[in-house]
């Protein structure tokens, strides 16, 4: 659907995007995961032709370039910053922007109703946007991106700064769009969102793509093993009592070690007759992937 080759963009001294190449397939949800300032928004704007790259190219299906009007018709974009007319109502915002995509008459009404219904804003549609909560504004921001039902949807941090309920609502909306077979590009710095929604993920930091694959493959490749930490019931057990196979670190009454088979090794503990008060297993995830790739946490 989109091919991005060797994109490069700098703002003054800052290199925002450094040699990024991607290929996004029709119908998939593609995640751009990275910390603040990684270059996610800049990459999206380069893909849409809003910014001109210093080097590299963006090609849409059928060899179209992003500045062509046909390409833009097929594209929906929810900016990271809430981009709404605060003094107009939700309905008026939708009517205006859908008009910009050439919708009118019955079709326009139908699409607007669908978008409002999906985002749960139908009963507040006649209120001015400035009276909406943060979560409602986010949902309207999404509704505006999809009201013309484009095959390609680009979402820039669509859940930033909303409460868990609205977040859940937004995730469901995006899943609905996935079911309709839309291609989605999704940028975020929340790894749980990426993990839940994205088929493939590019991890980017400081403008560069560090890794690109499915979630499972990334975890398998970069996340390493699960971490187990155990609190014992009794005073420290002598080293000799512990099963030999386990590479355990002991510190007071707590034990910690890494393994690929956490459950089997906990079995060994109980077989040795050691009684345990609590157990915590941390499965490797994208957070660990990022930590291992950069030596930093995703959200510093």
């Amino acid at each position, binding site marked *: 659907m989109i091919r991005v080759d060797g994109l490069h963009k700098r703002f003054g001294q800052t290199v925002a995007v450094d040699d990024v190449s991607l290929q996004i397939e029709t119908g998939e949800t593609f995640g751009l995961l990275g910390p603040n300032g990684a270059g996610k928004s800049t990459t999206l704007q380069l893909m849409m032709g809003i910014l001109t790259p210093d080097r590299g190219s963006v090609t849409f299906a059928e060899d179209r370039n992003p500045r062509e009007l046909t390409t*833009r018709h097929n*594209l929906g974009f929810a900016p990271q*910053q809430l981009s709404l*007319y605060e*003094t107009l109502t939700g309905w008026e915002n939708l009517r205006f922007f859908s008009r*910009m995509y050439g919708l009118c008459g019955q079709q326009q009404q139908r699409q607007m109703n669908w978008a409002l219904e999906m985002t749960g804003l139908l009963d507040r549609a006649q209120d001015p946007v400035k009276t909406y909560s943060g979560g409602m504004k986010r949902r309207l921001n999404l509704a*505006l991106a999809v009201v013309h039902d484009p095959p390609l949807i680009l979402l820039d941090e669509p859940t930033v700064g909303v409460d868990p309920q609205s977040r859940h609502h937004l995730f469901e909306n995006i899943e609905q769009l996935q079911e309709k077979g839309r291609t989605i590009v999704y940028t975020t710095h929340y790894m749980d969102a990426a993990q839940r929604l994205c088929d493939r993920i590019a991890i980017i930091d400081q403008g560069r793509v560090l890794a690109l694959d499915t979630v499972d493959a990334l975890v398998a490749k970069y996340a390493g093993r699960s971490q187990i930490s155990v609190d014992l019931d009794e005073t420290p057990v002598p080293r000799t009592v512990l099963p030999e196979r386990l590479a355990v670190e002991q510190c007071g009454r707590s034990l910690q070690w890494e393994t690929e088979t956490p459950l089997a090794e906990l079995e060994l503990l109980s077989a040795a007759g050691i009684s345990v008060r609590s157990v915590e297993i941390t499965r490797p995830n994208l957070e660990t992937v990022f930590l291992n790739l950069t030596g930093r946490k995703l959200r510093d």
Partner: protein
Amino acid sequence: MVRILVIAGKDLQLLLRDPLGLFFILAFPAIMGIIFGAITGSSQTDQAILEIAVIDEDQSRLSTRFTSALVETGSIRIWNRDATLENERQASLDRVRRGRLTAVVILPRGFGETAGMPWASPVPIEVAIDPSRTAERGMLQGLLVEAAGSLVTARLEDPASRRALFASGRREIERNQKLPTVTRGLLVRLLDLLEREIEGELERASSSNPTAPSKSTFPVDLELARIEFVPIDRQGDRGLGANWHDKVRSRWDLSFPQGMLWGVLSCSAGFAISLVREQEQGTFLRLQVAPLSRFQILAGKAAACFVTVLFVILAMVLLGYALGMRPISPLLLALAAFSIAWSFVGIMLAMSVTGRTAESVNGAAWGSGVLMAMFGGGMVPLVFMPNFMQTLSLFSPVRWAVEALEGAIWRNYSVVEMLRPCGVLMGIGAIGFSVGILVLKRRTG
């Protein structure tokens, strides 16, 4: 095209939801127009009739005649018409000092002896005028000379003073030793001839039309001087200040173009701010992603600004009309309005790129607007500006806009005369468009 109109419609809708913006665009200019009109009207235009005091120390036939002639000009009201002479001089001067009278005119003793004799050196008339009434100064001067001129007629009409006039003329010639004897003889004979000729004319006129008022009996149209009203604080007779009070017909003629320009400036500033605000809040980005050209986005904004400017001018014209302003040429007024709208839309685009935030553009737009207004006649009407200010004003779009409006409302410009201010406005607009679009293009990639 439809999309441009939809964008423009959205911008007008945004404006309607912004009470403060509406106030500056509609109410503010109306208030300015009415207040300026009320102020200037009471001291300037409505007082095409000057209120003065006349102190007649001479009390002669001709000095009385002079006073009546002043009243007959129709431009002067004499405050102390029937008052006695005692203390009058001091009282009148006090009234001028307190701003209650425009001037005091003093006819000194001996005024009547030489008044109306073209060849005698006149006893000077003393005038004390309120120093703030600079505009009326020249007008009063003209009226005084006009009244003095009528005394020549007065002298000729009365047989006794006519004879005295010619006798003194002959004496003057006789006494002047510098003239060659032949010339002196010729001049005396010429005077005799003139006297006989005038006598004959007067008799014929009175026998053929005995009921005619005495004023028109004298057939020779003698005037001491023909007066052009030149305000005395101005050098020469050029610039927009020339002859203005012959043409202005209502106190609103000057103040409404002024007020309109404040409304127009508010429009430019308001839309410039809304354009950066869209960039700031991201709706501009949304529009850029939509299948629109940059031209369409800006044209929509520009169209909304254009319509608003036209609306402001129209609303002010209607308000002015209700108050008594009568534009001379509605067609030229429309031309002026369109040029102004074009020009200030260009200025709006240029203003919108003076900063990256609504606050900075707000500051820059209003700052430059006030400067343009100050030097362009938005605060002090152009006609009252000293020459150097008028020269500076050439750089202010507001000045050209005011000239275009005034040209249509009261200056009675021809189409050709209108082309200059309107052409300059169009040029300014084009420059504004280019600057705005180039900078915006560079900025948004």
